[in-house]
Structures are given as structure tokens and as C-alpha cells.
């Protein structure tokens, strides 16, 4: 038979164990939960930079429970993969039951977030959204707010005019957007076509299926345009008969080597992939603003519907200064200073 002291020790240890377990359990159950749902993979530079923006706000919120889910749809864009990624993400939301779902880019809205419109618990904060609020059922929804991603076409047009002027190129520059057919690019395509370029410039857009088409369009672009605008090319199949995706770097290096006109990206990562110049939306802003909205919902109990949807306010400039010099393209020193100041000179 255990002695009285032994029994006392056992009782105290049991109380300690149960007490600690109860405290941790209570803490865990009541921790605010944010699920960050990315349409693409963690290695995609856009996603990486959105995460940097998110963490600028969320790393100060140690009491939050954060969970990341990547749908990897740039790596595997097939209909079956899209369906599977949507099912998995919805299962995770149903099981994890987050307070706030930060859904980033259009695929995450289309395949997942729109199923939770007016959900009694889950609040939706979207980011990187280029599609229509109506399409996703977000218009007037009680539990939805977020930040739109608009290509900085005005800034882009200003840059075109500056470059044309400094380098004595076309006075009314014509720009042709060439990209793959991923869902987000379809929205870009529409925006570019609808944007009021004139009277100082002209813009058009064309989407291709595979790398063979891409090469042809880039080679022919010199006949109809003074500049090529690129956005996304990660879903380019090698050819009509070979469905393997072409690495992004290979696409950009080939494009820079074979183009007859300057190529300008609309994402900073276009330069990271091997391009020479990009004027794009800020992924940091998308992350930072959406995280701030999530914090306001959780900490200040704000209603998403009462929080106005934010437009894109910031853009970034990225460049390879040495490559631009080699190509004999001159730019206002302001652009170079901006790129260097934001660590976007490669």
C-alpha cells in the first residue's frame, strides 16, 4: 500500500497535470484562428511576398493560431487538381473552423471562399482579387471584405511614355500583353482591353496556350507593338502535344533573348524570373492590408460588411540595371532609385 505521503504526491501530481491540461485546452480552444489560403504554392515569388506582408502584421499577434494552406494551382492547373485542391481546402475549413479566412488570389475565392459567403462563424478577407465581386457572391455579403488587386496600368502607361520620350521611341507607344490562360490572367486580359490607353498610348492583349505559341507571338510582336507587357507564364505547356509546364525562368530568359522590342513585366517577380524591368502591384500591400483587416475583425469585433473594400494603392518597380544598360534602354533615375530602395534591383 502506498504511504500517505506517496498518495499526497500522486494527488498533487494529478491536480498539476489536469490543471495544466485544462489551462492549455482552454487557451487553445479560445485562441483566435486565421486560415491563410493561397491559390498557389509557397515557392511562387508572389505568394512569398504576400506572406511577408501578412507577417509584418501577424507576427506581432502571438496569441493567434495561424494555419497556411497552399493550393499549388500554378504547379498543377488541371481541372482534376483544381477540384481536389478545392475539396481539401473546404475540408480543412470545416474541420478547423477558423474565425477568419484570408483567401488570396482568384482561385481561392472561386474554389473555396465563395462557399462560405454569409457563414455564421467564418469571416472572409480576400486579397489578390482581380475578378468580379458579383461572380463570387461577395457583393453585399455580411461576412466579406478585402483588398482588390488591380494592375497599375496608369503607372505602367506613364512609364511607357517616359521610356519612349527618353529613348526617342514611338510617341504613341503600342503595348501588347502576352500571357498564359490562367484564370487570374483572363481578368488581366479584360482589364487591359478595357483600360483607356488613349490618346497617348495603345494597348492590346493576347493569351496563349503553350510555349510554341508564346515564342511565335513574342517574335511577331515587333510588327504590331512597340512594347511587350508580360504578367503570368507559369501555366505554359511546352507545346500542343507536350503538356509539361515550361519553367518560368526559361520563358523569361528566352523572351528577353529573342524579343525585338522592350519587355516590361506587371509583377516584380517577372524580373526575378529573368526579365529586365517590371512595374507591378505590390504583394506586400495585399498581405499587409488583408492581415490588418483580419486583426480588426478579431480584436475589435468589426463587421466585415462595415469595412470598405480597399483598392490597390501601391506598386513596385523591379529592374536589372546592368541588363537595361546593355540593351541601351534609359530610364528616369527615379525608377532606379525606387527599385534599389525597395531591394528590387536584381
Amino acid at each position: 500500500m502506498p504511504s500517505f505521503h506517496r498518495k499526497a504526491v500522486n494527488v498533487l501530481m494529478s491536480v498539476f497535470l489536469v490543471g495544466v491540461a485544462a489551462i492549455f485546452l482552454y487557451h487553445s480552444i479560445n485562441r483566435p484562428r486565421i486560415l491563410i489560403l493561397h491559390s498557389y504554392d509557397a515557392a511562387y515569388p508572389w505568394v512569398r511576398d504576400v506572406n511577408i506582408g501578412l507577417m509584418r502584421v501577424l507576427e506581432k499577434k502571438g496569441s493567434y493560431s495561424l494555419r497556411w494552406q497552399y493550393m499549388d494551382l500554378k504547379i498543377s492547373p488541371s481541372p482534376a487538381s483544381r477540384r481536389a485542391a478545392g475539396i481539401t481546402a473546404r475540408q480543412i475549413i470545416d474541420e478547423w473552423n477558423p474565425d477568419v479566412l484570408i483567401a488570396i488570389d482568384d482561385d481561392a475565392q472561386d474554389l473555396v471562399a465563395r462557399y462560405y459567403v454569409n457563414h455564421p462563424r467564418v469571416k472572409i478577407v480576400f486579397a489578390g482579387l482581380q475578378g468580379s465581386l458579383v461572380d463570387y457572391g461577395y457583393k453585399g455579403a455580411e461576412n466579406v471584405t478585402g483588398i482588390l488587386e488591380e494592375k497599375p496600368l496608369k503607372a505602367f502607361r506613364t512609364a511607357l511614355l517616359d521610356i519612349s520620350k527618353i529613348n526617342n521611341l514611338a510617341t504613341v507607344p503600342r503595348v501588347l500583353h502576352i500571357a498564359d490562360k490562367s484564370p487570374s490572367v483572363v481578368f488581366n486580359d479584360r482589364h487591359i482591353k478595357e483600360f483607356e490607353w488613349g490618346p497617348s498610348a495603345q494597348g492590346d492583349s493576347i493569351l496563349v496556350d503553350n510555349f510554341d505559341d508564346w515564342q511565335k507571338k513574342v517574335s511577331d510582336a515587333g510588327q504590331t507593338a512597340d512594347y511587350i507587357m508580360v504578367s503570368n507564364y507559369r501555366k505554359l505547356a511546352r507545346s500542343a502535344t507536350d503538356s509539361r509546364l515550361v519553367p518560368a525562368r526559361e520563358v523569361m530568359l528566352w523572351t528577353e533573348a529573342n524579343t525585338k522590342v522592350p519587355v516590361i513585366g506587371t509583377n516584380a517577380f517577372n524580373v526575378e524570373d529573368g526579365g529586365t524591368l517590371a512595374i507591378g502591384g505590390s504583394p506586400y500591400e495585399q498581405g499587409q492590408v488583408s492581415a490588418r483587416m483580419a486583426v480588426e475583425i478579431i480584436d475589435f469585433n468589426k463587421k466585415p460588411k462595415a469595412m470598405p473594400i480597399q483598392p490597390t494603392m501601391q506598386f513596385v518597380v523591379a529592374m536589372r540595371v546592368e541588363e537595361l544598360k546593355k540593351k541601351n534602354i534609359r530610364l528616369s533615375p527615379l525608377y532606379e532609385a525606387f527599385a534599389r530602395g525597395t531591394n528590387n534591383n536584381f
Partner: protein
Amino acid sequence: MSHTAIKQHASILDSAPILSSLSAEAKARLLPMVHEVSLAPGDVLFKLGDPVSDIYLVLEGEVELATQRGVVRVSEAGFIGEEAALGCMKYLASATAKVSVRLLAIAHDALVEPLANAPKLRRDLWFSLSAHLAEKMEPNVAVTENHNLKIGSDVVQSVGWLVTLLLPIAMIMWGENVGLTGQVKMFLAILCATVSMWTFRLVPEFVPGFFAILSIILVGMAPLGVALSGFSSAGFFMAMSVLGLSAVVTTSGLSLRVLLLLLRYTPHNQFCYQLNLLAVGILLTPIVPSANGRIALTTPMLTDMLHTLRGINGSRPATRLSAATFAGSTLFCGVFLSSKSANFVVLSMLSAQLQEQFHWLYWFFAGSVCGIVMLVLYLILSQFMFRNKENLPLSNGVIDLQLKVLGPLSMKEWAAAASVLLFGFAVAMSSVHKVGPAWLALSVLYGLLLFSFLEKDEFQESIDWPFLMFLGGLVGLVNVMFYIGAEKVLGTHMGWTATLMRENLYLFILALSGIVLAMRFVLPINITMVIAATIFLPIASANGINPWFVGFIILTMGDSWFYAYQNSTYLLFKRRSATPYDEGGFMKLNALLTVAKLVGIYVSIPFWRYLGII
């Protein structure tokens, strides 16, 4: 064996002073593995240099032990043949009955596990052996055996070290010819040396992992946080905690008690015996994370059952029951996360989001269709191949006695049962409390350590620390592969795999299964699984295919084998059971089960699609 004899043996095991350090559970396990031997004066029990078989406890009479240097006598309550339990290959003395002698023979295999958990008994046996042989001990016999063994392995080792030396050099010198540059070239050189050490089994399997991590750190290929990430991953702590929990379940005797109760209280007919043996193995699969451990637990049940059903050895019923014992313990390894160490390796290689998703219950759920198909096919095949109409009455005598030796449920057993139930309940409720399964397992382990249900010595001895080092090193290696982007290079060089993964899943399953089965002809199970997972999981990730799906195929097919040498668990089973079955029929069923596994995987595809896994 008569009921009275078994009762006597139980009483002897319980009262022998030298066995006093064994737990009741260990003694209960020994019971079916002992038999009595009687010798007339002058009879020789064994000769110096004979291969070891049993260890003997003298019940009555006196035995003379003779070495080349002298003679000692061992009388009642003394042990002889201790070298059999202490790892010697041959007896170090000759034993002859001086008068009429009665001995209790214990199969030397039966003591391997108890000795691992009872250092005092091991020490006592060494003292006993030393006392018998003292200065007369002549180790030449054992040394000769080891020397002979070494000659064979020396050739393989020389080739292995040569490959380990030359392959990385070749990679560094000519890697650029195949498009490898910079850090990727250096990484693949390190990987080649590591894989070569595993393949040729040059060192214990956790050592190459250390080499890889050390090399990566010293050449500055990745930050410390990435290189050592395997030692801080949730998978590492999950594995450590589950191994600790399993140790408590087995050492407490709970697993044995459950098995005995199952055998005791189910109908006594051939089909139910088969189901029982199968169920016992399946029940143990998630609890005991080693196929060898499960076989060590279940084989005595089979042996005992066949002893009781005397005269059926080699018959269809015996083969059917033997196959059920083996299949129960080994067939469903892929279905339960905690069934074997390689499963933890695959879990740890998954991304953080997949590790969170494929916790214990979801892994089981995702693998359940494959498991059900394999079970059904097993039952159909076994029924078809071993059909017979023999009536096999089984006595409950031995089981009752074993239960008696175990005594009432101990505190440790209560704790083990409560821990398993608590862990299962907590994992099932994780959607409410949001604590990850790894941390739940660690909490349960903490509770067991706090109340000393798992003592410090047991914690050191029962947890497979070399495996955990192996796991940590391997996961670090894979994370470095992702960090430097080597998986993309690997994917480019194995483009056909990526194309198959994306375009023809059915053919990919067949191709991957073929590769894994081919590897199994030259590599052991764990190494096959680890190498295949290291290559194919990153390619799957890079191509948007769920790596768990690829890992599941590797784990399920990697367990397959066709020849005895391919599977150490089978060799253990064969030795422990003394092959009471028709080996031809057994092997035929085993080969057909490989097809059953493949069918299970294919049938699971619609289910995995429904779950969004593929």
C-alpha cells in the same frame, strides 16, 4: 502438452530465483515457449561448438559442464546454456547428465525481448555463465563463426566503400555534363554517398544521416535551421511520443492480456481461430510500431495453438493459421501511421500543411479502403487456397494459466489503457481543441513520465533513439533538397516520372510499384522505402501530385516480398514458429497478397478522388 505440465511450468517460471527480475507479463509470454527435457545418466545435452538452441533450468539432478580446460557441475535451480540467450552462436561447453536429470528448456529466441527489458536478468545470466566457465571460458568457437561471417561481408563492404568514395567524386567532376551545377551538384554528391552507405549497409542506418547533415552544415549549403529541421519537426515528436506510448502498452502486459482475452472468449472453430490471429495482429499494428515486435508477440499464440491442436503441422489448417498470424501483423502496415518507423519518415517528409492534414485518424481514414480490400482479398485467397473440413478443438488451459500468471490488471496496464484511449479521443476531438496530434501524443507521454509509468531506464531503452536520429537526419536532408531546389533538378532528370504522374496515374502506380518491388530484391524494407520516398516525394510535390498518395504506394508495396531473404520479419516468424506450415502454400499466398495490395491501391483511387487527395 498436458494441462498439469503447463501448470507446473507456470509455477516454476514464477518461483525460479534467477527469473525474479522478469515481469509477470514476460513470464506469461515465456510459458508457451518452454518444455521439459529428461536425461538419463550419461546422456549428452549438447556438445561444445554445437549451434545454440535452448537455455536450460535444472529442475532435478546434476549436469556436468566440460570445456577444453576443465569441468564444473550445475545442480538444481541452476542455469546451463546461458550463452544461447546472450548472443553466442555456439555452446561454449559440453553438457552431460551426471545422474537422472529433469530440465526446463526455454527457446533462446524467447528470451531476447525479456532480456532487452530486464538488464538485471542479463547481468545474472552473465554472472552464471562466468561462474560456470570462469577462466576456462574459450571464446574461440564464437570468434571463428564471426570471422567466417565477416569474410563474406568484407567483400560487400569493400565494394560499398569504393562506391561511396567514387560516386560523389564522379558527381562533382562530371556533374556539369548532365546539367548539374553549384549547390545542387554538391548536394547530389552528398546524397550519393549517403544512399550508398545505406544501400551497402556499411554502418548502422542512422549514421549516414549524420554524415549528410554534417556535410551540409560544413559546406554551408543551408542554414542550421533548415539542416536540423528534422529534429524539431512535429513528425519527430510524434514518432518519439508514439514509441514511448507503445513501450508502456507492451511492457505493461496490456497488449498480451488483450490478445489472450480475445483468444479466450471467441468461438472455437478454425475460421474463428484464423480471424482471431488475424485480428490480434491488426489490433497490434497501430500499437506496436515494429513488424518484428508484433511477430514476437503473436507467434507464441500460434505456436501454442498448434501445440494444443497436436498433429496438424504442415497441414492446410496449420498453414492457414500461420498465414493469418503473419498477415495480421504485417499486411496493414501502410494503413496505420504508427505501424512502422518508415511511415513516420514519409509523414515527416510531407509539407507542414499535409502533416497537419494526415494526422493519425485521417491517415487511417484515407488508407481504410485499401485496407478493407486487402482484408477481403486475403480472406478469399486464404479460404480458397487452404480450404479443409478439419474440426480443431482448442483447450483454454494454457490461455487461462497465462492470464493467471499475468494476475489482476496492474496500475501500469490501467495507465497504458487510459493513455491509448485518451490519445485516441483527443485526436478525434482535435477539430474542437485545435491541438496537433504530435503535441497530444507528447502530452500523453509527459503524463506517463510524470507518474513514472515509463521510467527513465525504460525511456532510454524502449524508445528507438537511433531511429529517431535517422528520422531527424533524413527529414533535414529532404528539407535541404527543397531549400536549394534540387527536387526540381531531380524532376527534370526523371521527367518520365513526372509526365506519368500527371498524365496517367494508373500507369504511374504500376511503374512505381514495379520500381519499389525491384528495389526490394536488393535492398531491405526500410532502406527501399526511404530511398524511394526521398526520390519520388519531392518529384510529386514539384508536379502538384499529393506526396502522401505517392508515399502510401511506396509504404504499401515496399512491404512486399517473394523470397524469405527479402524480409527479416518473415525470417523471425519462421524461426520462432519452427515452420509448422507448408512453406510453398504460404509463399504462394504471400505472392498473391502483393497483387491484393495493388488491387487495394487501384480500388482506393475513386475514394481518394472523393477526398480530394488526388
